[in-house]
């Protein structure tokens, strides 16, 4: 398969009190269209990745909402898969182009989270979990903490090793003007941050963020960066029904499908954006994506293999969810933007030299949905 990325853009991510969802989408979409040198009138379909517009904003019908805002009265729909909404919207765009039904589609990802209290947001995010998990008063940090404890018990992963993920991603974000936290943090700062859900601390957790991203997918040839694999898999909604709590099976299934589609092996990935909603998530992702052996990723990260300048693959040059921020529905689309920039050579100070093949890994809930994309230059 080959779907071309004609243009890609994100807004700044952060606590954007003054920016409405319309505002954010307008900025991301117009920048992407400008970069693609495509007139808005050529867009034939719009896919919007978003999770909480209904629960927090009382707004359903997001396809029509943004189609009107952008002046594009074309096919438009909201795609939802919790925190994988953005990745699923990209997948929908890929399916639209591959099917031959559309030639130019606009994929948007947007989330507005800071209008509401953190407690309310935490409660609504649990819409991605099961009823039993909600009834238990679990939060997403809590669910990943439960997995972290298993990983620590089985592989000896330590809290310091988890903290190193945050340190690395903050270093990358300090080079990214669009990130929420454009500053590095020390290991000590992460270790001393207040407990959220034991053993996860505040700086082990991605923040609450506003932001939007847009990608233009086309059928037109002669573009440089292509999506060569787009795979989705699901696993049980809740943790209690999983076979194994030290990794995400949906990620293994989706990534294996993606590697097969692309005809490559994990070793060939130069750069990747992975779903580090919590530090432990990046460690599990390294293993589930086949970059490192099970139980060995924590050490590899700590030794600097996945940091800019390391032996690779270089992970989360945007700063990841932790330091770039996690506007839920936008993340999956922003990951595509970052890899697009890397492969096109326009990633600025965070450029991975000679990056040819990249991967994005977007997860919904505690691992119930996994979306993996592989992008290649040329």
């Amino acid at each position, binding site marked *: 398969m080959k779907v071309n990325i004609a243009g890609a853009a994100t807004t700044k991510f952060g606590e954007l009190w003054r920016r409405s969802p319309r505002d954010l989408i307008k900025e991301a979409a117009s920048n992407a269209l400008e970069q693609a040198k495509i007139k808005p009138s050529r867009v034939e379909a719009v896919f919007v990745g978003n999770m909480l517009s209904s629960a927090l904003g009382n707004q359903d019908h997001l396809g029509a909402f943004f189609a009107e805002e952008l002046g594009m009265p074309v096919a438009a729909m909201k795609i939802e898969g919790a925190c994988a909404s953005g990745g699923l919207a990209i997948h929908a765009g890929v399916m639209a182009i591959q099917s031959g039904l559309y030639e130019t589609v606009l994929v948007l990802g947007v989330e507005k989270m800071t209008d509401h*209290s*953190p*407690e*309310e947001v*935490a*409660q609504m995010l*649990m819409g991605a979990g*099961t009823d*039993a*998990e909600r*009834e*238990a*008063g*679990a*939060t997403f*940090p*809590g669910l990943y*903490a*439960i*997995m972290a*404890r*298993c990983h620590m*018990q089985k592989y000896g992963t330590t809290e310091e090793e988890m903290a190193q993920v945050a340190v690395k991603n903050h270093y990358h974000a300090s080079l990214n003007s669009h990130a929420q936290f454009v500053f590095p943090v020390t290991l000590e700062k992460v270790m001393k941050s*207040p*407990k*959220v*859900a*034991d*053993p*996860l601390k505040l700086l082990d957790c991605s923040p609450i963020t506003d932001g939007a991203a847009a990608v233009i997918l086309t059928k037109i040839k002669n573009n440089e960066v292509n999506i060569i694999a787009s795979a989705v898999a699901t696993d049980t909604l*809740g*943790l*209690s*029904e999983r076979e194994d*709590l030290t990794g995400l099976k949906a990620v293994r299934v989706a990534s294996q499908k993606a590697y097969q589609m692309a005809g490559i092996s994990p070793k060939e990935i130069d750069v990747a954006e992975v779903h580090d909603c919590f530090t432990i998530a990046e460690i599990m992702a390294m293993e589930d994506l086949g970059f490192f052996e099970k139980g060995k990723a924590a050490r590899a990260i700590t030794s600097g293999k996945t940091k800019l300048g390391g032996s690779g693959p270089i992970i989360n040059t945007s700063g990841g969810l932790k330091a770039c921020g996690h506007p839920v529905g936008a993340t999956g689309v922003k990951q595509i933007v970052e890899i697009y920039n890397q492969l096109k050579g326009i990633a600025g100070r965070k450029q991975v030299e000679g990056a040819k093949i990249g991967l994005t890994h977007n997860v919904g809930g505690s691992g119930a949905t996994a979306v993996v994309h592989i992008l290649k230059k040329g």
Partner: protein
Amino acid sequence: MISPVKIWRNQKRIRQLLGLKGKIVSFTKIFVPPAGFEAQAPYIVALVKLANGQNFTAQLVDWEDKHLQIGQKVKTVLRKTRDPGEEGIIPYGVKFRRI
């Protein structure tokens, strides 16, 4: 207000989970609760393997630090779960208590 119909529909499922023994597979102590659980924090959410082979996620009650171990034996008990507010039907559900 939680729908009384949903609470009613759930009763059978709760009854099937009562009086079961199990062992803690993993757990966490929640310090930052979601809306509705503020007054309970900090509390323990545990994932337990029940004697019937299935896993279940629920709060752990009446615990001391020494009970917070993978492998701790527990049983299911009936407790109030979500906050019904001033007017709503009170939801009861299953929590774990150490044996």
